[in-house]
């Protein structure tokens, strides 16, 4: 089963290398970006290999330490974090800055998987378990909201919610949760402060901020559409070269790729993601413990949610919320966390009794 891990690793590295080439194309003048991302890729790939060789049950045993460590890091961000773009998101360690909120996603997956492992019931979740799980999710998610980073907080909540549903949520409960939100939403709205409301309004309607996010979307669509079937060629994207497109090496990296390599390039990239997700999901069948299965599923959900939101966002079908495309966008923390994810997921294939891979 080592072979499968290397297929997964190879696919992820391939997407990342394409990503670095793409970053190079958009930022010739600042080529340090692509160099930096290459360093991150090396570190991330090695981390993935190491995690793959570690027994995933060690992760299970360390779950509470990990959980509290994450909470402490998030608290530190709120207190001594570095500001950027109106929010505190980064912690600085030496010359490297990283986003604890990214790591919080993995922590949530680990803690919820172990909870599911212990408390699973054939008839589905009861209310007390649901509340416990909700609290486990809410603590870190709330701290991320305070930064404020609504995008990442939303993703953490979504991961948690989907894990709860897949592990056996009763249909009736699902209906009640839906009803609960329908009722409390207007009430919450009343108690929110003006600036919080404004943030939500611009989240729901990016066109309310003309020169900001609405502008991004239009420029992104122009970039994608003008690429046509074959694309304009490497380094020839006018939208990106002329700097029309904002955040072109981070959140909107996919638009640049589409402009320069057209529909063909886009389909190739989507295909790579499809392969990656397919290979990862298969691992959940091999797991010998429920913890392993849900660890894999949680990590796959994390990647799926991010990939989907980012692609919908850049193609103008979802509001601009600042979610990077996993493996592809510039950003060290995101890359490292994605690779850690596939490393941990792959380690589920390890059989601890035989000491071999399944």
């Amino acid at each position, binding site marked *: 089963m080592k072979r499968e891990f290397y297929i997964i690793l190879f696919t992820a590295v391939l997407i990342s290398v394409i990503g670095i080439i793409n970053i190079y194309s958009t930022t010739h003048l600042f080529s340090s970006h692509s160099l930096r991302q290459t360093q991150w890729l090396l570190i991330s790939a090695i981390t993935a290999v190491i995690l793959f060789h570690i027994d995933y049950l060690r992760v299970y045993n360390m779950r509470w330490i990990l959980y509290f460590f994450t909470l402490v890091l998030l608290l530190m961000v709120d207190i001594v974090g570095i500001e950027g773009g109106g929010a505190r998101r980064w912690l600085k360690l030496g010359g490297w800055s990283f986003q604890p909120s990214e790591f919080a996603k993995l922590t949530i997956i680990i803690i919820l998987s172990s909870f599911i492992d212990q408390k699973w019931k054939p008839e589905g979740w009861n209310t007390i378990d649901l509340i416990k799980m909700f609290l486990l999710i809410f603590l870190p998610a709330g701290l991320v909201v305070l930064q404020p980073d609504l995008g990442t907080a939303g993703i953490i909540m979504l991961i948690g919610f989907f894990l709860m549903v897949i592990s056996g949520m009763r249909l009736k409960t699902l209906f009640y949760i839906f009803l609960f939100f329908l009722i409390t939403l207007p009430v919450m709205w009343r108690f929110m402060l003006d600036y919080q409301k404004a943030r939500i309004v611009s989240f729901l309607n990016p066109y309310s901020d003309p020169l900001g996010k609405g502008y991004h979307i*239009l420029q992104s669509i122009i970039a994608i559409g003008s690429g046509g079937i074959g694309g304009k060629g490497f380094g020839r994207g006018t939208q990106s070269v002329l700097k029309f497109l904002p955040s072109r090496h981070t959140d909107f990296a996919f638009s640049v790729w589409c402009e320069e390599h057209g529909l063909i390039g886009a389909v190739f990239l989507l295909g790579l993601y499809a392969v990656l997700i397919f290979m990862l999901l298969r691992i959940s069948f091999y797991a010998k413990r429920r913890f392993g299965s849900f660890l894999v599923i949680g990590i796959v959900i994390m990647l799926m949610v991010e990939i989907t939101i980012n692609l919908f966002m850049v*193609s103008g079908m979802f509001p601009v919320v600042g979610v990077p495309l996993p493996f592809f966008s510039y950003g060290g923390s995101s890359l490292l966390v994605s690779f850690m994810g596939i490393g941990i997921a792959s380690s589920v294939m390890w059989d601890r009794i035989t000491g071999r891979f399944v």
Partner: protein
Amino acid sequence: MLFHPHNPEHPAFRRKVNFLYVIFCGLLGIILFRLVYLQVIQYERWWRLSEKNRIRNETLYPERGYIYDRNGKIIGDNRPSFDLHIIPDECKERCLYAIQRLSSILGIDSSSLEVSYKEWIKIHSPFEPFLIKKDLPYESLIKVEVERLFIPGIYISQIPVRRYKHDFAFSHLLGHLGEISETELKILKGKYALGDIIGKTGIEAVAEDFLRGEKGWEQIEVDAFGRKVELLNIKRPVRGSGVYLTLDMELQEFAYSLLEGKSGVIIAMNPKNGEILAYAVNPSFQASDFVRGIEKAKWQEYLSDEKAPLFNRGSYALYPPGSTIKPFFAIAALEEKLINPSSKTNCPGFLWIGNRKFRCWKKEGHGRISLIEAIAASCDVYFYRVALLLGKERITKYLSLFGFGRETGIVLEERKGLIPLLQNNYTPGEIANVGIGQGHILVTPIQLLRAYAAIVNGGYLVRPRFIMKISEKDGAQFDPPSIEKLPIKESTLEIIKKALFEVVNGKMGTARWLKSPAIEMGGKTGTAQVVKLEKYKFYREEDLPEKYRDHALFVGFSPYKEPEIIVIAVIEHGGHGSTGAAPLVKKVIEKYYELKK
């Protein structure tokens, strides 16, 4: 070790996992469809936008809210203003040529523009428009439109700017607009952008939040000549709320016309509720000079003008009140029971205080007169005596009670004025002088008007108000009426009011020649002395050079019972109150009745 049915081998679990994968592929499929739609079906359009044409993001400026008078007549609305720019990215190497050509059409100096353009382009993006001329006149606009065919990159922006019904008459009340300053930008973070126009003084500043409106924006596709090809997106701006003033536009214009050629103030108010009906100040400034932010040279011109046209004489100028202060001394003395309204005092034309002789304005004296006569005839000797009887503490107490030496609470910028201070020591001569409104007493016209309103409305100190309503909301919440009942006996006020009536209607009244059967009016004259040079000491008033003449004051109200209008006129260097100011007040009151019909 198997966990039925969540044994990973269990088919139900496999089904769920497969379902998850199908969902993901479905989502990728949607994206694929979207990409095909954008990159294949709509390819032409987006390719055109990325290669040939440009998208312009334009801020759409809102109209400023209108300003109306109490009857809904428009005092201030808006007109379109056109600015000429070029966009360097679009005119490319022909930009300098474009600047030369356009400036020759407009008749402006091109060399200085070229120099500033060369500096500007170094630090700005080529997509940013470079301003050639602000506020193009209509004829130039047509000429420039023609040039568009020959010069690429011409860009004309249109914004609404304030237009006033009358350029001068309302200026001191409405205040002036101006470009937002950096400090204002910091304080009002987020609401404004650099270059925005904001109310700086007066009503424009007070009601800024309501008048401002809401900005919009549009994204348009333009071709290489800057012509609009397609509107991609728009959010329309929202006009600011209308502000209704308590002012009567026609009365205001009339009052302002009375001040022509003079320096001074005429303010008319409803004494019952403090609603200002007219607020005319001259010299005034041209409000349209400020609507797009004033040019430096013009601003300097205003500042260096000796007549101080930017100076709001209604609430910010301090004048000695002269004889108009006397009724308040009379009230104080009556309340303190120091004088008896019926007993008479002799005025020989002077009064010795210490070793100095204090003169009455009437050299031969008034003879034996009562309180009412003393006010009507404005006898100085009588009030020297009253002031000395009262002493510093009681003078300060009563003057302060009537609002002197403190703010009136008007929404405009104002000064507190000056009354004798408790902690200072004054000689008896200084105290006596205060009794006739000279020396240690200075008031603003609005203060004086309010104090008189309190006499004639039965002892209520009102706050002067300007804002009647904003849009459909009652203005009371923005400019609330405030009424203070003064602890003065009604009988006292009745006596004083009678005396004020006698000023115009009595035999000895200083303004008796204004008496007319048509209009029932009372009031008080005042003449405020201006410091004169020694050499002019023996000149007659009318022979003096203007700047050494006295200030003329008059406060008049009508009708006698339940007055509904009270007017003050202060004319700088206008000579006597009865001749310099009182006729103006009478005309305003006449106009008021005429408009009422």
